[in-house]
């Protein structure tokens, strides 16, 4: 999607649009290679909402760790997108953060406080929206909000005010008196999220809060989350909708196989993949032949085929591109299009984690 307008802190995207081969060749010669932003430096301790150090976590009776040596810091007021393929360990990491699961080793501090020091105070700091819907289906939206509000420690006028806020947040004022089991999936999701916001904790942990939600609701939820973030809330957000994360989050952490494989500003992450990738589209009948030839080009480190697409990892794509195109011309294979750099977060994500299916690993 060329020239997609972007808002908020993630507006700069140093990637190139699709264009034809000739233009690209000209550009390749003239364009300077964009300098990658330095990854965000770890902030000082007082600014940290979450400080995870050397974390290992394993489920009971499991043979391997689901979280392996993860160190992750989230500054106060950050809107962090936590990414990773299915089974990467996102929910596990968040479970340990929310004191649902005991780490095998390592430390977690939220606002400088560990769970062991003050369990109730620690839990007061965090609001968790679980990945699975966590609502009482036989209760109405209002009753659910009241129940979880009271269980979170709210009462009296403050509870009433927060319940009203929650209903508005979920856009369910008119359905407040209907049982949750009669709601649509999206309505339930919105209420699930609103329930988490009720006690107004400084750190929000949202595990795939927008699954199954229509674009309108999603947009509204994002607006609300941005407003909360501007008001100072730290938000940790996991989602498989990478475009949504790209629009919403200013920081990204990527988990794969229980390990943290990248963390930093969104822009920096994207920039890292602008530099070394070339994507070519071929006639499907020629893509394999092209791959065989391109493997032999100097400076090409990796060739991945996803017919009709072929992705090259090179040490310096702008320098190698002429040789690559010349080589293809030599055997009379013409690419239909050529792109340099990561188009979007999805490509960066796939580059980081590979394209292999992860379930059942």
């Amino acid at each position, binding site marked *: 999607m060329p020239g997609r307008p972007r808002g908020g802190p993630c507006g700069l995207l140093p990637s190139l649009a699709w264009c034809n081969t000739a233009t690209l060749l000209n550009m390749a010669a003239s364009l300077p290679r964009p300098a990658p932003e330095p990854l965000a430096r770890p902030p000082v301790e007082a600014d940290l909402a979450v400080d995870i150090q050397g974390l290992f976590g394993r489920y009971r009776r499991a043979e391997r760790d689901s979280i392996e040596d993860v160190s992750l810091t989230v500054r106060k007021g950050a809107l962090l997108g936590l990414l990773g393929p299915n089974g990467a360990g996102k929910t596990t990491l968040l479970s340990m953060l929310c004191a649902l699961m005991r780490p095998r080793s390592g430390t977690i501090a939220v606002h400088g406080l560990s769970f062991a020091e003050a369990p109730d105070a620690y839990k007061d700091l965090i609001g968790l929206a679980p990945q699975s819907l966590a609502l009482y289906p*036989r209760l109405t939206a209002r009753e659910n909000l009241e129940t*979880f509000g009271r*269980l979170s*420690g709210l009462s009296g006028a403050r509870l009433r005010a927060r319940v009203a806020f929650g209903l508005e947040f979920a856009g369910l004022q008119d359905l407040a008196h209907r049982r949750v089991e009669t709601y649509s999936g999206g309505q339930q999701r919105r209420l699930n999220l609103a*329930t988490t916001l009720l006690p107004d904790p400084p750190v929000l942990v949202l595990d795939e809060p927008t699954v199954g939600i229509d674009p309108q609701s999603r947009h509204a939820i994002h607006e609300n989350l941005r407003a909360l973030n501007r008001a100072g809330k730290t938000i940790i957000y996991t989602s498989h909708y990478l475009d949504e994360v790209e629009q919403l989050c200013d920081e990204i952490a990527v988990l794969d196989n229980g390990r943290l494989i990248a963390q930093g500003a969104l822009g920096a992450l994207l920039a890292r993949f602008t530099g070394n990738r070339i994507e070519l589209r071929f006639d499907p009948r020629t893509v394999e032949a092209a791959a065989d030839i391109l493997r032999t080009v100097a400076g090409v480190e990796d060739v991945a085929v996803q017919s009709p697409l072929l992705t090259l990892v090179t040490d310096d794509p702008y320098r190698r591109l002429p040789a690559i195109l010349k080589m293809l011309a030599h055997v009379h294979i013409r690419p239909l299009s050529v792109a340099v750099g990561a188009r979007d977060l999805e490509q960066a994500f796939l580059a980081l984690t590979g394209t292999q299916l992860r379930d059942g690993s």
Partner: protein
Amino acid sequence: MRRASQLWAALVKETLGLVRDKEALLMLIVMPAVFVLIMSLALQDTFRQNIPRPMRVMFLAGPGVSTERLLAALRHEHSLTVSARITRDDRAERARVRTLVREGHAALAVVLAARPGSSRPRTAILYANPALPAQMRALGISLVRRAFARVASNRLASIVRRFAPHGPGVRAAPLRLVVAKGGLDGAPTPTSAQQNAPAWALLAMFFLTVPLSVAVIKERQQGIITRLRALPVPSWVLLAGKVLPYFLINSVQLLMVLGEAMYVLPLLGGDALTIGHAPLALVVVAASANLAAIGYGLLLATLVQSQEQATSFGAVSVLIMAAIGGILVPKMVMPAAMQEFSAISPMSWGLDGFQAIFVRGDGLTGVLPDTLRLLGFGAACLLVAAVRFHRELRPQ
């Protein structure tokens, strides 16, 4: 303050969840109400014993004229089936006969003390099975009395014929019948309503195991437990929130069933339930049975892994407890060994407690042993459930 508010929330959500669970209400309230009416009416006559079957009577005596006459008179009664044992040495036999009657192999036993040579009236002792329903027992005794009276009147007739010098009546000593008291004396037995009302009320109480454990499983499956675990709320608050609504609904159910058996049953031609004169003891037994049922339900809820397990294992275990405990089949129709075995079922303790008040007219002290058993069982179950629930909620 915070805990009170949390407890209130836990109570309200469980209560609303339960009140809106139509199947649970059907099982916990409608089922016992219907069963009490049907079963009380259906079993009315069995408990009244209007149409007596032949009753087995054992007859033990030494040989002699009186023995023969008495035996003939007893055999004359069509409602009695007599098995006689005529022996000179009746010491060992006596104990055996008493055991047979106590264990229910015979309803009655007539033991004629061998006292040869004495001219004083010979005493026959009548033993009755303790589990025999009161009406049946009275009927049995009156039939035996009639046989004795027949022998006596025959004797009178022969005295009138005193000129027949070798008539047997002259030599036979007069007979006296004593109905044995004490160990073998039967306790009063319950009426149909006194059996059925507490029995079905107890069964329904214990049946809360099913909706209760299904509710807990659903909380676990729907991920609600994840949210609960992330909140600063201790496990005891959530557990207490589960105890109270079920306690209330069980109490309502019991009141309804007792009221129904007292006031509705007679309108339908049944015998009204009489509940004795110890309301406090009744409250104590009801509350302890209630707690025992909830304890068992919560224990099961923390043990089972799926809704299927909760419904099948919950229902089956409760039905087995009920069958053993004299709920499905009244204890008085069970053989003695089975009656003793039934004491392992908590429902039997509850039933015994209620019947002690209804039938024997016992007060607090009379129901103390059963109450303590129920409370002990309930407390043990609750304790294990609380530990398991706490373990489930804390960081894993």
